[in-house]
């Protein structure tokens, strides 16, 4: 049962979005989110919405996947929407008992919801259309450009890579330990929440012990293959920008400028 776990939420497909360099996608998401906070009127959101939906459509990722990503924030968003509708002062739009909804509040709530939904969608678009390895490589490459983070770039990507490598191994191991404990009469299903949580201790302890053992052996294997850290290391695969990335950059500059411009101009 544990074998079904998928790592990240990568949706493999053959699309121009998938083919983009991970650095381009990372930068795009960063600037898109940045611009989203700049936008505060309908025109800006139309630009953003059209851009985002054309990205989703051209990525060949089913729209449902992206929508599913919004579920976890639905509750928080509706709650904050309600709060802002009711608390922001202004002209009355409707009234339920003593609660007064204002036009200003409605507007603010709409902007905020659109902002958060687009923010989440753009982030899940990134992880849906970029494999974890590409993402790691992209992050390392970008971190290397940032003076403060430069020192950690290699270590971070190496750790992420090893973590990704060992997730399936440890999942298998957990499965094995669970079966071993079950065959000795362990019960993970019944009892109160506290009891069930407690019954996981006999799984976690051996899992941790073996994880440390693995870490020790892996460190030795890496050492015997001449690993001395990021310095002086070369890479087999280098990230290379293609024509597609340049095109994407141009599109992004246009879209992001219009988003920002709409915010500045219309509000005058």
């Amino acid at each position, binding site marked *: 049962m544990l074998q079904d776990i998928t790592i990240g939420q990568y949706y493999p497909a053959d699309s121009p979005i998938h083919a983009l360099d991970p650095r381009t996608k990372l930068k795009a998401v960063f600037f898109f989110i940045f611009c989203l906070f700049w936008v505060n009127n309908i025109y800006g959101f139309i630009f953003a919405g059209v851009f985002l939906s054309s990205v989703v459509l051209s990525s060949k990722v089913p729209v449902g996947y992206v929508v599913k990503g919004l579920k976890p924030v639905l509750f928080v968003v509706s709650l904050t929407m309600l709060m802002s509708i009711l608390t922001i002062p202004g002209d009355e739009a409707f009234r339920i008992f003593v609660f007064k909804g204002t036009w200003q509040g409605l507007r603010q709530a709409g902007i905020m919801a659109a902002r958060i939904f687009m923010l989440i969608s753009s982030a899940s678009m990134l992880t849906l259309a970029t494999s974890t*390895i590409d993402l790691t490589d992209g992050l390392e490459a970008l971190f290397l450009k940032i003076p403060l983070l430069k020192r950690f770039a290699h270590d971070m990507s190496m750790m992420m*890579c090893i973590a990704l490598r060992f997730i399936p191994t440890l999942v298998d191991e957990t499965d094995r330990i669970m079966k071993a404990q079950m065959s000795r009469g362990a019960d993970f299903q019944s009892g109160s929440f506290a009891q069930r949580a407690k019954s996981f201790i006999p799984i976690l302890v051996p899992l941790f012990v073996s994880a440390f053992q693995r870490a020790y*052996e892996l460190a030795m*294997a*890496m050492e*015997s293959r*001449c690993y*001395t850290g990021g310095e002086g290391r070369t890479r087999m695969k*280098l990230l290379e920008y293609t024509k597609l990335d340049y095109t994407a950059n141009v599109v992004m500059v246009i879209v992001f400028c219009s988003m920002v411009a709409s915010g500045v101009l219309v509000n005058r």
Partner: protein
Amino acid sequence: MMIQVRGVRYKYDSDSDSYAVDGIDLDLAQGEFVGIVGHNGSGKSTFAKMLNGLILPTEGSVNVLGMDTKDEKSLIQIRRNIGMVFQNPDNQIVATIVEEDVAFGVENLGIEQTKIRGIVDSALTSVGMYSSRLKKPHQLSGGQKQRVAIAGVLAMNPRCIILDESTAMLDPNGRAEVITTALRLNKEEGVTVVLITHYMEELVNADRIIAMENGKIAFDLPPAKAFSDSGRLRSLRLGVPEIVQIASILRENGIPIRENTLDVEGLVEDICQLK
């Protein structure tokens, strides 16, 4: 001599009197296929880890291609020349994709980016894993994982490969895959192979078998001689390969089987001579 071991002793705990490796002198020449056997705790794995400087001897010295393993500056050179494949296939694969893992050692050496691809491809081809180069490690069988690990070592172009109980966790098919690969590298590409194992039948093609007991070398003989004294093997808690047993029973019963018959083919040949 490629590797010279002189008076090496090692203890894990500096307060204790017991040595895991207790006085070993050994020479390994280029191109040899050497088996090291011994029951658990005989010191064979500890000894193997001294050959590429993962463990430094408490006393004595290990000299690899003229470099002392105690000299920290030459460790990288020693390790690229003495590759090591470990027991657990899962705990030595670093990357999430086969070809990336094979590239790991080469990348560590800082070899030019344009050359890495060719090196990795030829290492994968050499162990017969080229068609699986884009797979994820957990999609491979145990034997395949060990072959990837061998490819990872091979990519660094080593003079010697140490297989530290690399077959211990594999099923018979996986074991055969690894042994065939090691033999081929030894015979065709002249790589020195040090094979540490529990299974005597893996060593019928070795040039020498070194048996260890209590951190010392119990004997250092060619396979035919090593297998001939089953009493001594038993006292070292080592098995005799099935074919050698059958041959010796046949010999006892007056059927002329040659002394150096160690595998099925040889035995069949000898028996067919009888007609």
